């Protein structure tokens, strides 16, 4: 009953209702669309970092993070790997790697980098190096002397595919080892710094070179479904692994522990979004109050009359509030749909920041940003507007109860 009355009253002044509805719709849908882009940016940042040889969970020697030296390695990992795989939910990926600081030299150039020994088949879907290389090929099993370098590094050393480079690093016994490799592939990543920081060789080539037998330096775990939230509790899984690995020298950490800065940014992110919602809400709140006030003043006589006929103030408040509720609900639904359409149809292929590539790199964000629409953002934006919006309605509603019949008759 109230709703029907409210609906009719709303459309008594079509233009005014449409204008304030436009403000509400622009406000809410831009809240949601901006949130989708920001979240997409952050999500890109997170997955870039996780793909950057971090993984969801990493297990290494407890000294290794602070002092990544070859003596802090995982000795004979086969049993451990079986153990871990058994503990993880199905669909999880487990890869082993060995890494060491190294110097890469050509006849004219020397550069410092981190050499990583990998099993290329296992890396697919776990880290960027599992993707097909930008040029050349990933090494097969037989190719012991191949190295894969980053695109930027190749440019820096002025090299090309097939060229020979010398890798110098320290073996397990402390002696310096030099070995020649042929550049067999070139990888490209979102971030140029990554392209300069790493070079990859076969896992057992590197194990032989360092003289460490089957030892490795890290086990990286990718939990199933990496796009949305992983289905298992990251912290609990990490704690479970830590508690159950047989070797007490080992340390299990998840990406939130390994990337504290990004992690704390993620925690602040929802707060930033709420602030943005609040600001946009405030911008339209003034208009909301004003419009409701106009609607109320325009019907001053009507409210005075209703009160004269014996309507209780509570009912008048209810009348005004249901008009506002209807207006806001209407605005919220249209905006959510509009935001959904905007994100899925207009920006489904993302925004290419190519002209700001270096700026994007600076912030550690991907070159192409895909908006990510989450139910949290839609619900949060709508609730901010609905709850606080109803709050702003109190003032006009209370005003409406103050019109006495005598007073309104004098007012023309």
């Amino acid at each position, binding site marked *: 009953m109230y709703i029907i009355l409210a609906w009719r009253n709303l459309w008594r002044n079509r*233009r*005014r209702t449409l*204008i*304030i509805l*436009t*403000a509400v719709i*622009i*406000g809410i849908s*831009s809240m949601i669309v*901006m949130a989708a882009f920001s979240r997409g940016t952050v999500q890109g940042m997170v997955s870039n970092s996780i793909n950057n040889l971090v993984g969801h969970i990493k297990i290494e020697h407890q000294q290794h993070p*602070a*002092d*990544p*030296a070859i003596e802090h390695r995982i000795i004979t990992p086969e049993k451990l790997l079986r153990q871990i795989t058994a503990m993880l939910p199905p669909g999880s990926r487990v890869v082993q790697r060995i890494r060491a*600081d*190294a*110097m890469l030299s050509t006849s*004219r*150039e*020397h*550069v*410092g*980098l981190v050499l990583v020994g990998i099993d290329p088949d296992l890396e697919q879907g776990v880290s960027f190096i599992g993707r097909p290389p930008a040029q050349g090929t990933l090494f097969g099993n037989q190719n012991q002397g191949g190295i894969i370098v980053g695109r930027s590094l190749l440019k*820096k050393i*002025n090299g090309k595919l097939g060229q020979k480079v010398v890798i*110098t690093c*320290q073996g397990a016994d*402390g002696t*310096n080892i030099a070995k020649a490799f042929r550049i067999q592939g070139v990888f490209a990543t979102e971030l140029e*710094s990554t392209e300069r920081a790493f070079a990859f060789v076969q896992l057992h080539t590197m194990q032989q070179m360092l003289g460490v037998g089957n030892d490795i330096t890290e086990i990286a775990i990718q939990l199933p479904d990496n796009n949305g939230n992983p289905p298992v509790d990251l912290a609990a899984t990490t704690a479970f692994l830590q508690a159950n690995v047989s070797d007490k020298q080992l340390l299990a950490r998840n990406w939130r522990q390994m990337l*504290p*800065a*990004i992690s*704390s*940014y993620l*925690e*602040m992110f929802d707060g930033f979004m709420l602030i*943005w919602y609040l*600001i*946009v809400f*405030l*911008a*339209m*709140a*003034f*208009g*909301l*109050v*004003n*419009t409701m*006030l*106009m609607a109320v003043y325009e019907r001053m006589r009507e409210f005075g009359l209703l009160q004269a006929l014996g309507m209780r103030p509570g009912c008048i408040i209810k009348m005004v509030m249901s008009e506002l509720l209807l207006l806001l609900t209407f605005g919220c639904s249209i905006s959510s749909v509009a935001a959904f359409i905007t994100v899925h149809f207009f920006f489904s292929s993302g925004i290419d920041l190519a002209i*700001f*590539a*270096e*700026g*994007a*790199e*600076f*912030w550690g964000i991907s070159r192409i940003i895909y908006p990510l629409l989450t139910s949290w953002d839609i619900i949060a934006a709508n609730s901010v507007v609905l709850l606080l919006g109803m709050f702003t309605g109190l003032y006009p509603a209370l005003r409406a109860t103050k019109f006495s019949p005598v007073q309104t008759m004098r007012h023309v």
Partner: protein
Amino acid sequence: MGDMILAWRNVWRNPRRSLLTILAIVFAAVLLVFMLSFQFGSYEDMINATVRQSTGHLQVQSPGYHDRQEMHLVVADAQHLVAEIEPINGVSNVALRSEAFALMSGEKRSRGTTIFGIQPEKEKKVTTLPRQIKQGRYLQKGDHGVALIGSLLAKRLQLTIGDECTMLGQGKDGSIAAALFTIIGIYTTGVDAVDRATVHITFADFNHIFFMEKAAHRVIITAEHLADITPITQALQSNPAFRSLTILTWDKLAPGLRQSMELDLISGIIMYIILVVVVAFSVLNTFFMAFFERTREFGVLLSIGARPARLVRMILTESMLLTFTGIALGTLIGIGLTVYFSHQGISFGDGGELLAQYGFEDRFYPRLSWMSACLGPALLLIITFFTALIPALKVPDLKPVDALRSC
């Protein structure tokens, strides 16, 4: 009784409505002034941080060195050039710097690092490194055979103050360069890449070890102000001594920096435009009401011979009076807020760690400038003006008879 006064009285016919409208505009203006000052302030901090930390405002290099840092691409006779640069107006500091890649070894371990040869007495004036020494001391003029190393590198090589380390690299001419150094200082800049893989030695030592023959890789110029960069560049370009050299400004030296600021500014401006449009629509109803509730009055005015254009002007004046009042108040409050926080600073609490990773300080200082004080309000003014036009332009369509019939 000018038209202005007439408009002003009309504005206050409905004080509640006008106040709410002004408040909406005040809110937007305050926010825009403060946020833009904040953004511009942080950009300036970013530029200064980068400029001080590494690039300087301007650099003189050998052509090609910027793209590929090869040892042999040097600025010969660098000391002579310093003497040419120093007297130029706006130059505050000129320092020479060379860089080489070398293998640093402690007793048991080694790592590839970048070695910087610096002039401590000059760099001390501009860089933040002296303040980031956590153990030991900074380099001094006349030091010989000593080195500063990053804290992560020290840990990695298991070195502390007083320990000796060896350096193995390649000289400018391609011959083997080797030397022994004593650690006198360990620094933590907060940027992992710097703390993990850099070493600083004196320019004289570098010159000697890497057979540089008094040449340098970079001549680093710090300007008094950002505005001095262009005149300094022009002065250098017109000097024949620099003809065969490349002059690079900070935005070319650190292109990511400039773009990152542009990216940030553009995303900021998109947000501000959304905000202003929402505010504009919020106040559009007020503008419309000022028109519709007075239709009869306009009918009378048209009947007695006022031209429609005059009425358009009148209600535009009313809308703009509201807008101006709001913008003026908002800008003033925004400026006040900015000035307050530019002394106080704004702390980001937990976010400090993240900021450090990007090379920021943990406190932000908004900075007021003409740009930051005017850009937002101007945007607000333009968009509100066009909004006010929507109802105002309905006046010429108004027929006096119809207007008189409405009540």
